[in-house]
Every structure is written in C-alpha cells, then in structure tokens.
C-alpha cells in the first residue's frame, strides 16, 4: 500500500450528487483497507451554490481537508466549477471535467457571462485535463442522476483503483433498485478515460 496520502476533490453545484459520489469512494477505500477522511460543506450550499467534497486516503490520514495545489485528482461535475477549483490541482494532477453547463444567477440575469473556451483554458494550464460527456453518458443509460457515478468511475480509473472489487460498496451505499444502473454508470465512466 502506498504510504503517501492521496487527495481527491469532487466539485460541482449543490444537488449534483458530489456528496454521494464521495461517500461511495470513501466506503470503497475503507473496504480496501485504507484510512480515509472526507469533508464537505452542507447548509446554504445545498441550494444551487457551488460545493466541494474532499476525500483523502492513505495509511494514516490527519487533515480532513485538501490544501491548494495538492489534489491528485479534481473531478468537476460542472464545467465552470473546474475553473473555480483549478488552484487545488497539484501540478501534474488529473482534472476530469464534465462537459455540462449550469448557469449561475449572475449569468441568468445577464450580469455576467458564462466563461467561453473553458476546456481550452484548462488544458493550457493543466495538461492532465480530460473533458468527458458524463451527463450525456448518464442520459444514454436512461437516468441523468447517475452522472455522479459516471464521473466517479473516471476518478477511480485515474487513481488506479479500477482493478478493485467495488460491487459490495454500491450495494452498501445506494438504494437496492438503483444498484444496477449505478454500477453501469460507474463502468461507463471508467471507459471514458483512456488507459
């Protein structure tokens, strides 16, 4: 087991399921024998604000939060949120971006513009950027809500944890009738990333 603590940051918009994705990840890591800490902010952020979930694992983890410049993987459930949390990515880290836009109120009201060319900007500073169609993949599976598991699949692949057995984790974390679709979304997410 790698002694170095690994850091995963899941970011998005309240209601997108970042917390559940973080929970599945943490439960899986626990079952593989890691020490895990996780941290999230609820409250106001539930109402359409930007949210982030920190997951850290290793042989012994102290802080529940990730510092700027130290995330091995940042997964953005919404495109613009990738831009907001970019400073957390470690140089050389992997940035997984869901190609999906949710306009914040200043944009809806025409007071601000939704940034253009986000992908290009991100790729220029962070070569480890991968843009994926997680929302569309989930739609194709017939359930937009499992977008979070598509992204989690991509995260797990990036961490090199795709060889582990995750089936028990899904059974423990999601309602029985959604286990199957969640697992399929997870598998589809792994396939979105190249080897």
């Amino acid at each position: 087991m790698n002694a170095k603590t690994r850091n995963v940051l899941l970011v998005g918009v309240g209601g997108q399921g970042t917390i559940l994705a973080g929970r599945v990840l943490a439960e899986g890591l626990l079952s593989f024998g890691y020490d895990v800490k996780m941290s999230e902010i609820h409250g106001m952020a539930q109402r359409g604000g930007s949210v982030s979930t920190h997951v850290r694992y290793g042989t012994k983890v102290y802080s529940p939060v990730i510092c700027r410049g130290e995330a091995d993987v940042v997964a953005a459930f919404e495109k613009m949120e990738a831009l907001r949390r970019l400073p957390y990515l470690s140089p050389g880290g992997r940035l997984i971006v869901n190609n999906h836009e949710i306009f914040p109120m200043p944009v809806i009201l025409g007071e601000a513009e939704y940034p253009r060319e986000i992908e290009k900007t991100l790729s220029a500073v962070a070569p480890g950027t991968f843009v994926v169609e997680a929302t569309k993949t989930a739609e194709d599976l017939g359930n937009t809500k499992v977008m979070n598991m598509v992204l989690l699949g991509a995260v797990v692949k990036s961490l090199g944890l795709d060889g582990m057995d995750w089936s028990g984790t899904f059974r423990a974390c999601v309602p029985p009738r959604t286990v199957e679709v969640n697992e399929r979304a997870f598998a589809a997410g792994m396939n979105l990333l190249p080897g």
Partner: protein
Amino acid sequence: MKAILSGNEAVAQGAWEAGCHVAAAYPGTPGTEILENLGRFPEVYCEWSPNEKVALEVASGASIAGARALSAMKHVGLNVAADPFFTMSYIGVNGGLVIVSADDPGLSSSQNEQDNRWYAIHAKVPMLEPSDSRECLDFTRAAFDISERFDTPVLLRLTTRICHGKSVVETGERVETAVREYRRNLAKNAMLPAFAKQKHYMVEKRLDDLREYGESSPLNSAEMVDGAEIGVIASGVGYQYAREALGDGASFLKIGFSWPLPRRLIREFASKVKILWVVEENDPFLETEIRAMGIPCFGKDVLPVVDELTPAIVARAVLGKKLAQALEAELPPPNRPPLLCPGCPHRGLFFPLGKKKDVIVTGDIGCYGLGSMPPLNVGETTICMGAGFSAAIGFQKAGEKAGRNQKVFGILGDSTFFHSGITGLIDAVVNKSRGVFVIMDNRITAMTGQQENPGSGRTLSGEDTVALDIPKICEACGVRRENIHVVDPYDLKASGEAVDRAWAAEELSVIVTTRPCALLKDVQKEREGLKCSVDEERCVLCGACLNLGCPAITKRGRIVIDQAACNGCGLCVQVCPKKAIGREGEAR
C-alpha cells in the same frame, strides 16, 4: 465494527452506546444530523423542540429525573439556551447531561463566527473537544461518565469540519444504563437564591476537582519526538491540521479535555520544547490561558482568528513555508451564490413585495434569507431567529419618529415562528405596532434539510401528531381576524393583493402563505407531471420571466425552461406579458 461516520453520526452512535435515554434539539447546521441519527435508535426518546432553550430544558428535566440526556445545538443555539445552561451548571445532574455545541468557523451557514469554548469558562462546566469522528464517538461516551462522576453538565464542542468531516470509527454495543432513582431535593434542584449561593461554592470546588482529573485524563495526550525543537499544543481539528503540516518534526500535546485546562501537563510539556505553538481555530482560547500561566508561546499573533485553518496555513505560520504554487487560469468564473429552488413558494410572495414602493423588509434565518439576493432583492436585515418580527417593530417605530412613509414587513418561516417569532408577534400586538408580519409557512424546517416542526403534523420519529394552526395562533395572540391574510403564494395576483391590503392597513396585519416546500418528497411526487415551457413564436425575449430568479429558466439565445428542474409552479406563466409560457400536465 469499522465504519466511516461523520462526526455528527459518531456523536449519535456514542450517545446510544453510552445508554442515553432522552435527547432534544432544534435543527441547526452544522449539528442537525446528531438528533436525526440518534432518532434512528428506538432506545432513545428523541424530539425536535420548538427552540434550543426548550430542548435543553427537556434534557435537563430528564437528567434531574435520572435519565442520561443529551441536547444538541449549533453555536448560536447555545445563546438561546444560555439561560438554562448556566443554571444547570449549579444544579448539576442526576443522569448524565451532555450539551453539544456545533460551532461554525468559516461561517459556512451561520450569521456569526462565535467561539463557544468561552461558554465553558463562563458557565464553569467541563468541555471536551474531539478532533475527528472516532473521538466524537469516544468522547461522547466519556462525557456521560464525567457528567455523572462530577455532577455536572458537560459541554461537547464540535466545529463544522468535525461535524461534517467523515473518518473511520470503531463502533461498539450499547451499554444499558438504568434510569437513576429520583428523590425530591430542593437544595439541589431548585435554584432559589439561598440554595444557589451554596451551590456556587460547590461549582468552584468542582472546577478544582475537574482540573485535577484533566491532568491524568486520557483525553489529553502528548506525543514527544526526540530532538524536535517545536512543540504544539492544539485542540479539535486544529490538532489534525498541525499534525499534517508538521508531521514528525514537532512534539504534540493534544488537548481533548479542554476546560478546565490541565496546567501541570501544559507546564511540563512546555518545559520540554524550545519553541511552543498553540494551534486553534478562531479565538485564542487555550493561548490566553497558557500565556496567563506565564508561558511564552506563539499563536494568534501569527495565525488568523477569522475563518478555518488548513494544514497549509499552519505550515506557513510555524515553518515559514510558502503556500504551494497553485495553478491559475486567467478566466475568473462568475460567482455561484445559493438560490431559492425552482418552484419555491417563497418566490411568489417575494416577487410582488419586491415591486412595492415604500417597503422595508426585515428578514430572519432560513431559506427566505435567499430572497435578499438578486434578482428578488427583498430583505434588509438578518440578525437571529425571530428577529424578523421583533426588529420590524423597532424599525417601524424609528421610521415613524423620522417621519418616513414606509411600511415594515417582518418575514420569517413556520419553524422560526414557533421558535421565537411568536413572542415578537405578541409584543407587536400588545404594544400596538403597525407593521406587517409575514409567515412563509412551507410546512417544514427547510434550510437545515427538512425537519419536522410544530406545524408539520409529525414528530421526529415520524409519528402523526397535532399540526398547529398558524392563522389561529395569530388570532389567539390578538391579531384581528380581518387583518390575517392567508394566501396561495403560487397565485401572484392574490399575493400582490394581500401585500397591498396589509400595506394600507392601519393596524398590525399578518400574511400567511400556504404552499409547502418544493423539495418535500410528497410535493415532488405530486407535481412531477407539471411542466412549463416557452412558445418561441410568442416570446419577445423581454426577460420578464428571468426576473423571478427561478434557476429553471435560462436564456441561451432563446428562453429555455429546464424540464427536469421545473415544478410547474406557474409563476413564470403569470409574469410573461406575451402569454408565451404555458403549463402542461396536472398535479397528482
């Protein structure tokens, strides 16, 4: 068994394991989930009380009667419960009494950043500060034992990162405790001045005993590193940050039993290190005491008092380390503030209220605080629970003195009305205030994640119960029936008329809205089939619908309504001047 639990879940687990019998709380982020989780155990009676004072009094009564009892609240909740808290310190306990204060450094969902550790000093009670979920469980168990052993309530102080952080814990079995025998004892339980004075001597003596106990308590622990010059004294999550930042390069004294402070232990630790740091979030609580002992140390002269710490902040302060080089893109994303949900019933009252001239709105704690954000922009103040009403009274009086032609609308929600709004209403009636009070009754305590309240007709454990009738309560408080306007906030015309009538009234008026929270499961089911969409032929892109601030409506060249988000409330249909928006489907 090993499990990953949040700090809140771990406190609930610990209380259950400790044989807790009774628990009471009012929901408040970040501590809400303690009672939600404790409520899953049938062995513990759990209730949502109308406010924190009532909750702590319920727990206090249970404790005096011999049961192990717990009351949980967020930091500002302890202000509300401060009255019984201070006196319970004098009375002490029969069954163990644990009071959880969930503080919010960094203000992720609070109106101030108060450090409730000062309450331990002020009320002269012992305080425990766990630093992760495992300790939340263990310390809660220990808190009950300390409470009974020293005849004192115990303050268990958490912070947001502890409450909502998750880490690995080892769960155990419940140790059944019998409800202790109760005997009438006025000198102990009735704090009339003569008895209370005697009790104060006891309290001072107890502090001495507790201080002695803390010196050898396993809740405090030292980790000495040979050759390390730096020593760190830390508590709560501050310990984890310091440990992460300094690793084996420093010795640590971790203070879990943080009031009264173990002075000998601290002196001994300080004598063994060259440079002493105190790492704690918010106020210099430990540091003040340590300095008062004449021990020089570094702390808040370098570390920030405002906001949360992080390992990087600690490393920068203690080691002079530069912050890691962070990637930056020169493309600043616009802010993404929290919003009223699609289909939120509050929007239907805020919208006409925001259009009205000569109106001042005093707000309160809860979702309706989001009404003060653009585009609705309704609301001037947010002070504390209940102040939406009471501050309106003062605002109105001041306006009258200044000769301003304004009407003050005080706004709060159903849960807040029961919490402490009701007393403001009584004040307004009796002292003849001429304002308008609005109760946005969405039938649930929404902001904290849907907890039952006295209006929702359910108890914490899901049993059916009486649902209090808000208009009737207002009438019973002395508001005249013709001045009480009950409106459907999805009907903009009706809401607007109620606002107009209340504005023009000579006497105090009340507006009560009647639509439940759009996030309630039943509501979502019922409205599932209701959707609005835009007829592009008719739409002239005037943007009137965007001014509702409904996140389901966006403009992407044309006006688009997100069919997954829309709950068919129909407000946009009503504001569109071109009748370009239509609604389909029926509520089930």
